């Protein structure tokens, strides 16, 4: 496919998606909002996890801070929604920078564990601060305008995806990839690894926070347990990895496909939907450990053998 055709397809997809609120039912639009928000989260995780190679479990913390930014601004201070978005984003970025400095010294499993603890710690702190509504939570003024939430989420996803696209052709993005591929090798070639990792963490946190802000206003309620839900972080990782981490469209496609599967399962086989979803994820990891994007790249040359090769390569 030539570059022009690919851009044309991407633009067309965005236009079709943007038109959904005008012909889709309420259920479809609501499904769309939650899927778009998950896609933003997966794409945000892609920056730190997919491109920089740091498997962050801290992104649900940024999501929560973004949600509380909107909650506090609107409920406690009577400020407009967008001020809350800015406030939440500032909190998340500041948090990413402050925590990134010590935490990003850790690598691999240790980094994952350290960030995993973050959400718990922050939830515990928030539960005790009156400004954050303690553990009772905050109730936001309702806004019955799903089309607006939908378009806002879509715009955010487009912004996140454009950012990732920019990464693949910028010096900054090359530095991040070099860090992922070999951090020591990157440092001796002049990459300021510490600064780049923190910037990637903050950028990833920025998108998570903005997604959290939209979610909070849409759901109109937030408490520490729902805002700092670690399973949300697991979800974004699964979606990004399912689609193809370190690719421009992989995490977005992963989020759409898995949300659709999950939606169908929970309406068809209500009780055991979780079980089937688990089977889908396990099958994906076994058959295509490098995600959908990798299949697209290699299926033409190896065909169905692609799956057999993966099974053999990973000795499962």
């Amino acid at each position, binding site marked *: 496919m030539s570059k022009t055709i690919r851009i044309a397809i991407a633009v067309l997809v965005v236009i079709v998606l943007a038109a959904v609120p005008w012909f889709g039912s309420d259920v479809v639009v609501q499904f769309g909002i939650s899927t778009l928000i998950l896609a933003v989260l997966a794409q945000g995780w892609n920056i730190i996890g997919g491109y920089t190679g740091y498997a962050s479990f801290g992104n649900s913390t940024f999501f929560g801070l973004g949600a509380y930014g909107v909650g506090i601004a609107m409920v406690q201070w009577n400020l407009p929604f967008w001020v809350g978005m800015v406030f939440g984003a500032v909190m998340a970025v500041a948090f990413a920078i402050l925590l990134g400095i010590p935490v990003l010294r850790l690598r691999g499993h240790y980094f994952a564990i350290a960030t995993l603890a973050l959400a718990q710690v922050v939830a515990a702190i928030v539960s005790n601060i009156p400004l954050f509504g303690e553990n009772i939570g905050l109730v936001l003024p309702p806004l019955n305008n799903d089309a607006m939430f939908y378009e806002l989420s879509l715009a955010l996803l487009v912004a996140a995806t454009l950012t990732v696209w920019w990464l693949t*052709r*910028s*010096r900054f993005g*090359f*530095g991040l*990839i*070099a860090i*992922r*591929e*070999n951090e*020591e*090798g*990157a*440092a*001796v*070639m*002049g*990459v*300021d*690894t*510490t600064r780049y990792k923190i910037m990637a963490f903050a950028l990833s946190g920025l998108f998570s926070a903005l997604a959290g802000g939209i979610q909070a206003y849409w759901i109109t309620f937030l408490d520490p347990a729902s805002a700092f839900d670690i399973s949300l972080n697991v979800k974004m990782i699964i979606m990004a990895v399912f689609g193809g981490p*370190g690719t421009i469209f992989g995490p977005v496609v992963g989020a759409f496909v898995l949300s659709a599967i999950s939606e169908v399962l929970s309406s068809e086989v209500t009780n055991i939907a979780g079980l089937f979803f688990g089977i889908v994820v396990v099958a994906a990891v076994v058959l295509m450990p490098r995600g959908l994007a990798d299949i697209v790249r290699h299926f033409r040359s190896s065909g169905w053998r692609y799956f057999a090769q993966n099974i053999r390569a990973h000795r499962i």
Partner: protein
Amino acid sequence: MSAILEIDHVTRRFAGLVAVSDVSFALNEGEILGVIGPNGAGKTTLVSLISGTLTPSSGDIRFQGQSITSLPAFRRARLGIGRTFQIMRPFPGLSVLDNVAVGALFGHGEESTALQEAREKARRHLEFVGLGRFADQRADELGGPGRKRLELAKALAMEPKLLLCDEVMAGLNHVEIDEVIDVIRKVRDSGITVLVIEHVIKAIKSLSDRLLVLHHGEKIADGEPDVVLSDKTVVEAYLGKRRA
């Protein structure tokens, strides 16, 4: 000739082990200095201390007259110190070309180089080390000898003033060794000072202007290759006392 690099009483200890012990020497601009020594003599540690992936326990390292002892690796890289790794550190998922482009993008610090321009530069460096036709392959598809050359191209793309080569000839056959020697000579002729660590004594003897011998972390000889290699303590260190 002025000194581009000065190593001043540098010591590096690891828990209970002195890897580099009170080593001092100077490297003159435009020189090829060979560093030899048996396994575990502290050669790679020395390169890591100069490139900044390790910091000395004591002593001072000066580059172009400025102390770099407390600078992180990336700053030293931007000042003009390029290195290769004995255990190769390619970016496996990137193309061979982009591996080298990283050096062109970051070797000069913050001044921004366009990606296109960096790739063009990278292509020239790949041609220079003889990897031109592998440019579009993934780096992890290269064999051992190819990876050694890639290490060189990556370091050269930074356009360093000083190049540290950590066993770039290990595992190569005679023909390949001759080719690498040729490349390193050309590097020096282009005005880059070179420090070469090597196991293959024959190769390094013909290449180096000067030889430095490390043994148990200490400098035991430093001078003309022929003189150093016939030195009694050096022969003892390499072959054992009885044979000497």
